[in-house]
């Protein structure tokens, strides 16, 4: 009896040793719902088997997924470039972006009632989830139109994204709302509401990434590297299916992950610039453009106190790019863009 138990224990320990397990967290968004399909279709399992690891996929609400990643409960997570910087990176959890999936190309928008203009928003009530890409988008909209000085006089109401659409539609005293799809489409259906500014006017600034904790990638047994390879390989296999012939069937199946119909999922994709080819994604990750955009984002995060009250300088949370250059203090790198796995996918060496 005892020997059987010890045998069991030894077997399970060695089994554990043989197959490291990793968890990916994702939340509902046009560019991330593919994870639902990756898991369901067995594509991810195939790649995990190839690299002799186990990959679990778990769906979260967005904010809890960030919390779980910061608390190190999950190993990889989907998030925007802004949250990657102000949540894990700023909390001292070094983070590496291994897949640049897409950028918002109209998914996020500033909507108003009664034909207001950006210049007429001063003193008006605006609903948004404060301190997120929504506020960033509004900030950029005002900056581009030389209205920066008026930002402070807009009366921002912090509104939970689960209620923002109904809140805006039912309360006519709110003049403007900043939110994202599919809520944007839902709000725009109402008469008299127009879109003033959307993320296609700031292309490449709101990036949707898959990030992994850097310490996972640096595991001495190399299992973290295998995890990144398996994940990237599976991702680009699916990207091929999504953009190839007969894609509708795959897209419909992905849409189920967010309870969207094929039409509605396609509509969301039309304002999402997906990098279907690993080559494109890697090229974007290595471009000088990325640095200029991240500079805007990190300055926004710092001036809005999102890097933490104890962060005295924007350079304390530094970003490293694939060419080795660093924004901020070189000994304080917390966020990295690493295109090596996307490059491998592009060359077909995964």
């Amino acid at each position: 009896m005892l020997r059987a138990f010890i045998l069991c224990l030894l077997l399970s320990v060695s089994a554990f040793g043989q197959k490291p397990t990793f968890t990916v967290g994702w939340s509902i968004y046009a560019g991330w719902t593919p994870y639902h399909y990756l898991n369901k279709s067995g594509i991810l399992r195939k790649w995990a088997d190839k690299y002799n690891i186990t990959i679990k996929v778990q769906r979260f609400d967005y904010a809890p997924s960030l919390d779980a990643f910061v608390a190190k409960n999950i190993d990889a997570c989907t998030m925007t470039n802004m949250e990657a910087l102000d949540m894990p990176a700023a909390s001292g959890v070094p983070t590496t972006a291994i897949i640049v999936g897409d950028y918002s190309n109209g998914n996020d928008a500033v909507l108003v009632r009664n034909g207001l203009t950006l210049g007429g928003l001063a003193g008006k009530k605006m609903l948004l989830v404060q301190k997120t890409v929504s506020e960033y988008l509004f900030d950029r909209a005002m900056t581009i139109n030389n209205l920066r000085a008026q930002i402070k006089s807009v009366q921002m109401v912090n509104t939970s994204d689960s209620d923002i659409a109904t809140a805006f539609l039912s309360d006519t005293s709110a003049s403007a709302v900043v939110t994202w799809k599919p809520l944007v489409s839902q709000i725009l259906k109402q008469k008299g509401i127009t879109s003033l500014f959307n993320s296609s006017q700031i292309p490449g600034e709101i990036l949707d990434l898959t990030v992994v904790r850097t310490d996972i990638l640096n595991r001495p047994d190399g299992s973290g590297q295998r995890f990144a390879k398996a994940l990237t390989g599976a991702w680009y296999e699916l990207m091929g299916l999504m953009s190839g012939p007969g894609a509708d069937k795959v897209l419909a199946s992905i849409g189920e992950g967010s309870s969207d119909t094929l039409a509605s999922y396609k509509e969301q994709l039309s304002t999402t610039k997906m990098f279907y080819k690993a080559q494109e994604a890697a090229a974007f990750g290595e471009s000088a453009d990325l640095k200029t955009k991240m500079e805007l984002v990190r300055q926004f995060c710092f001036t809005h106190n999102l890097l933490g009250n104890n962060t005295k300088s924007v350079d304390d949370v530094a970003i490293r790019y694939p060419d080795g250059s660093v924004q901020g203090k070189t000994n304080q790198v917390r966020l990295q863009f690493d295109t090596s796995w996307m490059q491998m996918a592009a060359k077909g060496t995964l």
Partner: protein
Amino acid sequence: MTSAFSLIHSKPGRTFDTALSWLLFAAGVGIYLYVAQARHAENPEERVTPTVTQMVNGFTDAALKPAEDDEATLPENASVFRRFPASMLWKDTKATSRRFFYSMLLLIPAVLLGLHMGLFPYVRVFFLRFILFFDKIVALSLLPILFIAFGIDELSKVMLIVIGVTPTIILDTFNLARGIPPEQVTKAFTLGAGDFDVAYRVVLKQLMPNVLNSIRLNLKAVMLFLFAGEMIASTDGLAYRIALLRRHMGMEIIIPYVLWVALLLFLVDLSMRVINRKLHPWFREA
């Protein structure tokens, strides 16, 4: 020796008593400090479990500096007494207390309704079934309807509390009123009291201490609904600040804020207990 084993009759000494009552606090604080220290040793920039110094700094800033969306109007060297009323903490506390106060006021009609339901059969028939049903409604899931009916400003937040808490208070008062011995009512009538004399001067008077206690027990529910309302849509308030700070794990302010709320609720509870004792010295807790 035998008496030592009689647990129900044991009489712990004063010092021991005090020490024992603080033991769980000490354990809680100790475990927190240990975990925080361990996490900070592993990652100096850790934000989920701030150290005591970080929390003290965070709270001092909150209590002395204006919120970041407000302009700093006071000179750097202004005294603490001038800086506190302009601070973020004071602004949030004021906003939340105002909403709290209005919803407490709205509990008065609830008590009166419960009383009338307990005494007047027609009122009871009219309301009871509906309120029993209404009491089971999970108010939070009806938010979109609340927004349409009451907008997204103050009114909807106060109404959320009213819908969430008043049915409990009404039903509790109703039950208490039903529990008054009918002999007393009859007696009052024989002494020449009218219907409303009986209601307000005989029954309500006796109910009041119990009603106050039941409101005290519901303070937490009131706060819970208020927090939910502030987190859903607002521009100020304690829960608004917590919701904002959560976006970047500002735990060094969130934890002190939560303790501050606990302290305020404790003070409200304490003052209600004291008032209850002053107003109804004849009352003995059952």
